[in-house]
């Protein structure tokens, strides 16, 4: 069941995108999210799609993983597409069957919105597919470092996140084991009526909590013994290396944004 979760799972590799500094990738993706909103006509949207596929090609990620990432947002995408098709008015009337009144502008906006979804999901998926969760955490920690000045516990948050990431597989495994143990005792969350399934949740959750607390306690002890006393005076083993590649990538994005702005329709 759990093993089928693919969305956003890190796929190791050594492409241009894999080798980029996580900070550069994070900045790139956040900036790209803003840049997407510059596009407002057919040429600019085509440019967005071209750039996105260029990045996909650079990352050498199989399209399969990206399409998979689309699945959770598919319904939302189709829904917004239809809303626009039916309710955005303007331009030539394409179909007019009483309440079914579809106009050119509606179809256009619907397609634009869908493209926007598509490129955003693809870009963020590329981020998570080419960057290990721990690198993302490192990147975020460094980027957010200035917030320490206003007493945001950046180091602690980053550590919490990295430990959470580290324990996800362990806890998934544990969940699977407990689920199987209770299934063998006749209590199954994966089948039966809704009432039966709800009843089967407690025998799953309680042991899971008990074990998670035990793990947390053990981990805290192990960390203390190994000299962990908070972020003060700590050095970092994971070093981030900014290279020319990262500068280029961000510069290109700036150029692209300027270009998009130039070609967008202004009224």
């Amino acid at each position, binding site marked *: 069941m759990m*093993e089928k979760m693919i969305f956003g799972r890190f796929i190791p590799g050594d492409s241009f995108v894999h080798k980029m500094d996580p900070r550069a990738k994070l900045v790139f993706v956040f900036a790209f999210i803003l840049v997407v909103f510059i596009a407002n006509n057919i040429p600019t949207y085509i440019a967005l799609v071209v750039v996105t596929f260029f990045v996909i090609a650079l990352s050498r990620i199989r399209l*399969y993983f990206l399409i998979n990432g689309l699945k959770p947002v598919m319904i939302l995408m189709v829904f917004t597409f239809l809303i626009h098709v039916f309710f955005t008015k303007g331009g030539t009337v394409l179909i007019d069957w009483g309440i079914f009144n579809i106009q050119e502008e509606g179809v256009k906006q619907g397609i634009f919105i869908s493209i926007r979804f598509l490129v955003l999901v693809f870009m963020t998926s590329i981020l998570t597919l080419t960057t290990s969760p721990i690198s993302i955490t490192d990147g975020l920690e460094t980027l957010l470092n200035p917030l320490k000045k206003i007493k945001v516990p950046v180091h602690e948050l980053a550590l919490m996140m990295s430990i959470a990431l580290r324990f996800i597989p362990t806890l998934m495994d544990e969940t699977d084991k407990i689920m*199987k*143990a209770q299934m*063998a*005792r006749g209590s199954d969350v994966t089948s039966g009526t809704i009432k039966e399934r709800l009843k089967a949740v407690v025998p799953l959750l*309680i042991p899971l909590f008990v074990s998670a607390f035990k793990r947390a306690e053990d981990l805290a002890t192990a960390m203390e013994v190994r000299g962990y006393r908070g972020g003060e005076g700590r050095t970092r083993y994971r070093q981030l290396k900014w290279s020319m590649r990262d500068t280029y990538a961000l510069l290109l994005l700036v150029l692209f944004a300027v270009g998009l702005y130039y070609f967008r329709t202004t009224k």
Partner: protein
Amino acid sequence: MDIELQKVSYSYAKGTPFEKAALFGVDLMIESGKYHAIIGHTGSGKSTVLQHLNALLKPSEGIVKIGDEMIEAGKKNKKLRQVRQHIGIVFQFPEHQLFEETVLKDIAFGPMNFGVSEEEAYARAHEVIKTVGLDDSILQKSPFDLSGGQMRRVAIAGVLAMKPDVIVLDEPTAGLDPRGRHNIMELFSKLQKDHNLTMILVTHSMEDAARYADDLTIMHDGKSVLRGMPREIFKDVDKLAQYRLKVPHVVAFQMRLEQRLGSKLAKLCLTEEDLVDEIARAAKKVREES
């Protein structure tokens, strides 16, 4: 109830790029009323086989027969619950499945899921708590207030209360101290003999397999590679070594002794007691000859 695996293959995360094959055409025959052991080192596929014995996993290919029920790749079987009722599994670290407020309720949980009345389930709890060697008074306690060893026994009691015909044991003594280990293994052995149960021990302990099992299956790299009586299988040190397994300590000791003596003892011994008898006999013979 016989359990049979015919050419069973299984892959985790089937149909995704993360697909990982774990079993390749495994054949396994578990005859009713016997004590079986399935042996292999970590990663040999023995835990995946274990989950097929109770339909917790369905084969990707092949057939699993549990009693009269057939579980086949790609086919639905609505009687999985009934199947599971007859097969109790004591998982590794079974105390991790405890969750109820009291030991009594926890033990009654399994039987009641399978439709046993509360009254009957509680009566069974009083019975099985003695079987596992704990005091009746423990039934009213919270399972989380017990010692590790007691929790293990309570969890085992919870499986016994389902009155299964087949009990599957997955490294039931992991993490226990020597006395605890010995007691638990003796408990299962006695249960098996007294009630003529089918016992399936999944383990990497050659010692336990040698001492208790009537029948052995060796797993290696997702395949069932050897099957037979312990005495036969443990004869062949080289073959076991291929599967990264060692013969039990007793057997290794006997072989070392035979090498020193330059002659074989009358039979291959699987327990220390046996070997001591055999040595005594051989020594007596030597004394009489001289």
